[in-house]
């Protein structure tokens, strides 16, 4: 049977068909839907972890315990999981273990565009790169087979256009689950230096055996065409290159670490000019050049951003004429949703002219107009470390004016250690946790603070307030972020405290909770003086009429009341109906 699937759905399907039994992940675009889809298969234990390191450790433990396992993450997630990743290469597995790295060239939803193919090479782990959804399904199975045959974790490396593109997939039945027995083996599984030294030898021998096998494996194949141009490529780049250079000869690589050197030489010997077409870094190109083969690549193709057919066509002087548009088009960036619980907090922070170290989530949108209140955003959890470091460097300059802001899911991911550190090191740092009780930006995934599992079964719930107190924070205050005057008062008090403080903004994500406070608000046009204050809160429901007066979009407004509180002339009005919830 055939169906249409995204790469993420196909990876989940491939894992299911391979008899997979355990999967863990922390949500991260573009990888999130892998675990969500695995969760649809009741045979598989699928669970959200608080971060990628834990996800990989739990999946590694499950593989050691004898079941085929998977850990999925976005590219920067593998940075967090790098510690277990590198050492799992030494330890090996029992049942198969596949690790998905979903890279994000062009940074559609990321803070950098690192090329995670280097991770495979650095950790000496075999790597597969599918080029469409059908290959994503097949390669997931191959990854598990290689993992078991060579006693190694395997990296399945995808990019956004593989994860989020859809193409036709042929479905197969699930194969019988196999459970391998666990046998204690200290020399393999305890990486004491004396054992690890021996294991490094095993790793190098394994890579040599793989280097032989990959010359003949069916994931690496030659498609002969015109021999004037020979293209070596992998992943999504293969599709773009085929689109533009239909007649050329191709060496399509699916297994890209280690490289099939014999096959590459065989191909190179028969074509006139060799072009390596790859996104981001010259990962293949440098290794092929080091073999003494004359190749072209990054001299005509960018190392920045995504490739696409236009870039390749231009590089090969096959450019396509396209319309030139001269008119300026107003941007339509993503915005905080109407009624979002974050809006009031950022409005107060702006009013108090705070310096704000930010973090990763929907609330990073507070860095763009009209709020523009966030000073930094580096990586998951960095808001807390940054706030402490800035405080220690700036001393009195930013006293009472500096705060770190972090979401609940991000706090549980990697904010806790930063909080412990600031208490331990006698800082007076102020932190605001935006607790909307969900991992919102990636599309509403549960986490250890929501009280629900991936399959929405009730489970224990982390008490953020008690957690902060246990770390040594004496001042932990909750605020209702929809009450501007109360929130302002609490911020004033806490910012001036002579000790560290955590303010928890306590309000669920309105989208997730399907919250509707009241019927839509409305504007008394006679009272509106067009001061623009209401537009500064950046709510998509606040528009202008033809006279420039404020108008509220009744389809979008959920009655959160923030705009009414900031409207000085009192033009914005509550509806006359009862407030609902």
């Amino acid at each position, binding site marked *: 049977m055939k169906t249409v699937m995204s790469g993420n759905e196909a990876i989940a399907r491939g894992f299911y068909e391979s008899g997979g039994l355990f999967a863990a992940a922390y949500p991260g675009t573009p990888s999130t839907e892998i675990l969500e889809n695995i969760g649809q298969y009741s045979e598989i234990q699928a669970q959200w972890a608080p971060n990628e390191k834990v996800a990989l450790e739990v999946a590694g433990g499950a593989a050691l315990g004898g079941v085929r396992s998977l850990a999925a993450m976005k590219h920067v997630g593998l940075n967090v999981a790098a510690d277990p990743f590198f050492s799992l290469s030494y330890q090996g597995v029992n049942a198969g273990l596949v690790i998905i790295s979903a890279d994000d060239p062009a940074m559609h939803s990321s803070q950098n565009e690192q090329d995670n193919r280097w991770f495979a090479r650095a950790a000496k782990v075999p790597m597969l790169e599918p080029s469409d959804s059908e290959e994503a399904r097949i390669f997931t199975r191959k990854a598990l087979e290689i993992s078991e045959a060579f006693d190694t974790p395997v990296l399945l490396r995808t990019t956004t256009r593989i994860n989020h593109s859809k193409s036709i997939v042929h479905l197969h039945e699930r194969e019988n689950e196999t459970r391998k027995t666990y046998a204690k083996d200290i020399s393999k599984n305890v990486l004491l230096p004396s054992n690890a030294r021996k294991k490094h030898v095993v790793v190098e021998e394994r890579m040599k055996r793989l280097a032989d096998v990959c010359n003949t494996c069916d994931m690496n194949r030659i498609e002969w065409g015109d021999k004037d141009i020979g293209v070596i490529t992998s992943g999504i780049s293969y599709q773009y290159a085929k689109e*533009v250079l239909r007649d050329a000869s191709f060496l399509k690589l699916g297994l890209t670490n280690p490289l099939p050197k014999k096959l590459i030489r065989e191909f190179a010997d028969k074509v006139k000019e060799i072009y390596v077409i790859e996104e981001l870094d010259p990962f293949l190109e440098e290794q092929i050049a080091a073999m003494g083969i004359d190749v072209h690549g990054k001299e005509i193709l960018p190392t920045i951003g995504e490739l696409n057919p236009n870039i390749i066509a231009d590089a090969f002087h096959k450019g396509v004429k396209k319309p030139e548009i001269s008119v300026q088009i107003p941007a339509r960036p993503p*915005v905080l949703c109407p009624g979002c619980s974050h809006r009031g907090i950022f409005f107060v922070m702006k009013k108090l002219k705070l310096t704000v170290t930010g973090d990763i989530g929907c609330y990073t949108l507070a860095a763009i107009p009209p709020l523009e209140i966030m000073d930094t955003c580096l990586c998951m959890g960095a808001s807390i470390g940054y706030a402490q470091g800035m405080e220690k460097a700036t001393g009195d300059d930013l006293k009472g004016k500096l705060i770190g802001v972090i979401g609940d899911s991000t706090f549980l991911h990697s904010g806790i250690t930063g909080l412990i550190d600031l208490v331990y090191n006698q800082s007076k740092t102020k932190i605001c946790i935006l607790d909307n009780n969900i991992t919102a930006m990636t599309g509403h995934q549960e986490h250890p603070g929501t009280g629900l599992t991936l399959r929405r079964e009730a489970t224990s719930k982390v008490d953020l307030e008690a957690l902060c107190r246990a770390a040594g924070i004496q001042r932990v205050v909750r605020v209702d972020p929809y009450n501007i005057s109360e929130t302002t008062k609490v911020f004033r008090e806490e910012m001036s405290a002579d000790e560290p403080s955590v303010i928890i903004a306590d309000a669920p994500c309105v989208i997730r909770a399907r919250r509707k406070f009241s019927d839509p608000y409305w504007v008394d046009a006679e009272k509106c003086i067009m001061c623009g204050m209401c537009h500064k809160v950046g709510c998509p429901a606040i528009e202008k009429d033809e006279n420039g007066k404020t108008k509220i979009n009744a*389809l979008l407004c959920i009655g959160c009341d923030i705009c009414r509180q900031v409207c000085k002339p009192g033009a914005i009005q509550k509806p006359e109906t009862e407030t609902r919830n």
Partner: protein
Amino acid sequence: MSMPEFRANSEEGVNIILSGVGGQGVLLASDIIVEVAMNNGIDAKKSEVHGMAQRGGSVISQVRYGEKIYSPLITEGKGDILIAFEKLEALRYLHFMKADGVIIYNTQQITPLSVYFSKMEYPGNISEICAEKVQHVFPVDATVTAETLGNLKILNTIMMGALSNLLEFTTESWLDVISNRVPKKTIELNRNAFISGRKLGLHEND
């Protein structure tokens, strides 16, 4: 002016760009086109980006179908059809289009917030700019039709109905997929929406 024909068995297949604003149902609409093509025995792919783009931002989805499709991304300058659920979002992706292509745009205006706090203006002559670059430009009042049918969420199905006038698939083929993909309670509503969209027809501005 004769209507162009778009056939899956043409040399480069059919390239369709769908655009709109987060929440308008662009992604489901593009899913439906791909499934209709697959059910007709045609190779098909689509591409879009999830994540930040869903927070009320501009959304684009690209659909390609034909005998053998490689790239899920459309080559800029080779777009056959651009179907925009909001008219500014037609302009934003106009550079994808070939000169003898077709643009269908919903006449609704959703002003981006940036217009309210910057000096940028919502362009007033979108239809003219589109017509300068692309041969066929068809406005449709799909939002008005959705309001008449009593549910703004079926905007995407109405747009699919309008689009279906240009493609080779039967009404049954579309309705089969739509019925499978929408919530059970709304099947009848969506079938009506598709038919209404198809009946809107395509009429060029003078």
